């Protein structure tokens, strides 16, 4: 070995020795301890909704809404970071495992909030006619864990016609709006594109420029009232508990009201709203104390018109409100009566207006 070669080798090896020595020291003295999955400390809490409004099941799959089915709070309570945390959910036989969220790193003392917005199987959902329990399963895993951890919770799917007015406990309901805490879900019962509703609406809107003319839109509103009366639709008085809010109430879809020829005030308001939407007239459903009333907005002026839809049932109107109506119980009279009711409710501050178009866009889409 020549002197030059030796010198080169000595310098090179000295540099390598020093470098690897430094790296050894860095590795050996790195903060905390080496990653050890056995030392991971996670507090994982699964929270589920008690009830799912089946009629609005699509809403629960929309991650832009606050309508999650379940959420999980994952808190790293230890000193060890957690890597490659994966979590997914399954709702009975109504979904496969959700695609699952991945969190590459959960640092010590960090909390992650994970939400479950499942795509529920439409065919299976349609078959749910009464309140049905279902088991939600959550599973998670992370780097170094030998097998996924699972947790379970039971929740209930309401029947397809069931609606709960408020999810707030009765003692916490202090304002009028509190009684209708779930009012947005009413939009899911308003089904303008359903076949029976559509074909019934076509018989009303024929020859009218409902999207462009105030006069025609108002004419259609009155024709709708008259057509339901001609169909023989009767008003069914709700039991007092109907508006109580805590228990699920039965709400009909418009096609059911048309076919069964009867409905509560809410059913009739929902049916008229759907029929008007089907022919291009913007509608609302107003909830006032113990009652529901359909309204329309005229396309040119934007004026609002309401109608007392329970008076579709002429016998009921004459029997219970004979002093307030003429023997014909005309649609004009019913518009006037409803206008007074709405004005009174507005003055009392006791009205909740449901704008179905707004809520459809916001994700509360009709299921059927």
């Amino acid at each position, binding site marked *: 070995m020549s002197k030059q070669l030796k010198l080169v080798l000595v310098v090179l090896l000295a540099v390598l020795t020093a470098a690897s020595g430094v790296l050894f020291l860095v590795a050996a003295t*790195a903060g905390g301890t080496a990653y050890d999955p056995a030392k991971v400390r996670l507090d994982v809490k699964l*929270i589920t909704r008690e009830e799912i409004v089946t009629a609005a099941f699509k809403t629960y799959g929309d991650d832009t809404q606050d309508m999650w089915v379940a959420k999980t709070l994952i808190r790293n309570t230890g000193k060890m970071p957690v890597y490659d945390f994966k979590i997914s959910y399954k709702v009975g036989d109504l979904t496969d495992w959700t695609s699952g969220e991945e969190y590459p790193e959960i640092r010590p003392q*960090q909390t992650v909030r994970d939400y479950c917005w499942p795509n529920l199987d439409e065919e299976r959902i349609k078959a749910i006619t009464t309140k049905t329990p279902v088991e939600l399963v959550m599973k998670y895993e992370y780097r170094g864990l030998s097998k996924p951890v699972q947790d379970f919770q039971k929740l209930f799917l309401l029947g397809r016609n069931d609606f709960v007015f408020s999810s707030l406990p009765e003692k916490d309901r202090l304002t009028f709006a509190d009684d209708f805490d779930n009012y947005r879900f009413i939009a899911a019962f308003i089904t303008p594109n359903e076949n029976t509703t559509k074909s019934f609406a076509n018989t009303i809107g024929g020859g009218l420029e409902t999207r462009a003319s105030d006069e025609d839109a108002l004419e259609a509103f009155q024709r709708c009232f008259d057509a339901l009366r001609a169909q023989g639709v009767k008003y069914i008085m709700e039991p007092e508990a109907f508006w109580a809010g805590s228990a699920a109430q039965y709400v009909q879809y418009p096609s059911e009201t048309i076919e069964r020829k009867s409905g509560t005030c809410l059913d009739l308001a929902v049916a008229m709203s759907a029929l008007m939407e089907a022919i291009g007239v913007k509608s609302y459903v107003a909830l006032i104390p113990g009652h529901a009333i359909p309204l329309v907005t005229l396309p040119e002026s934007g004026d609002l018109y309401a109608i007392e839809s329970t008076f579709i049932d002429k016998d009921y109107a004459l029997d219970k409100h004979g002093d307030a109506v003429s023997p014909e119980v005309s649609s004009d009279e019913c518009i006037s009566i409803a206008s007074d009711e709405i004005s009174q409710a507005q003055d009392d501050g006791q009205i909740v207006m449901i704008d179905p178009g707004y809520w459809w866009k916001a994700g509360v889409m009709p299921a059927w």
Partner: protein
Amino acid sequence: MVRTKKKLGIGVAISLFLLATLLLAGAGLAREAEKPTINEVYKVTINEVGDGRIVDTMKYGKDDYAAIKKVEKKNRGFLTRRFKTDDNTGELIDFKTDLDDSSHSVVINYDKPGFAYNNKGVFAVYGMTEKPKDNKGKTFTFEEKSTINSEFTLFTDQVILTKTIIELPEAASNPRYDAEEKAILYDMPPAATQLGFFNENKCLLSVVFGLLTLAFAGALAFVARRKPTVAPEAVGTPVTGGPSLAAAPPPVQPEAGAPAGETPGFCRKCGAPMAEGKTFCTKCGAHV
């Protein structure tokens, strides 16, 4: 304003309709102006691990504030009832409400763990649907106008003007708004006690670098102890077991210019230095 419709004579109907329209439009406007308006400041201060400290201040008109205060006095849970569930499950911590008479405000304080999400050191605050109105360093300000049916006030129809202020942690860097993600993004280095890759692979790296250090140090010692040698000019005699004679290199001739019969400076067999004039190597005995 909801309208009524009655079938009257055309002239009378038109006159009444116009009058009614004017009256009702006026009433409608009056009603619009009466709508309670809330000026809300929703301030979030985020810490190093993404938890949010929230101070939500809602300022009401004098009369509306008085109505709220009256109800709160009668029903102690009025302001907190819509937060109870989240409070019970631990999604909110240290939830407190306060009524500030001087500013007619309801003030709500709480911590929300996991307000920002961590994606390999890039933290994200989601839900920012509009571009920020203002961005000064690590503070983002958003403004929004909304109408809503009663949340936790007494009013079923109200206008809320909301200013949202998001303050990022001191150690955050590269703060930006991502319109596609509808989120504020920022980089957040791991805490000082962690060293990322080294901490994560501490055991393996300690062993690998330890062994490498030993190997290099051993090699260094070996090389350093070797004496530098001068290569022999020629090697003519094969050693036992070495390559065959046929394969052996040809004998090296004396250097050009060296006088014939003179001994070379080194033994041709073993390379030991030879004194001038010697014909036998004093080390190996070879004849030169």
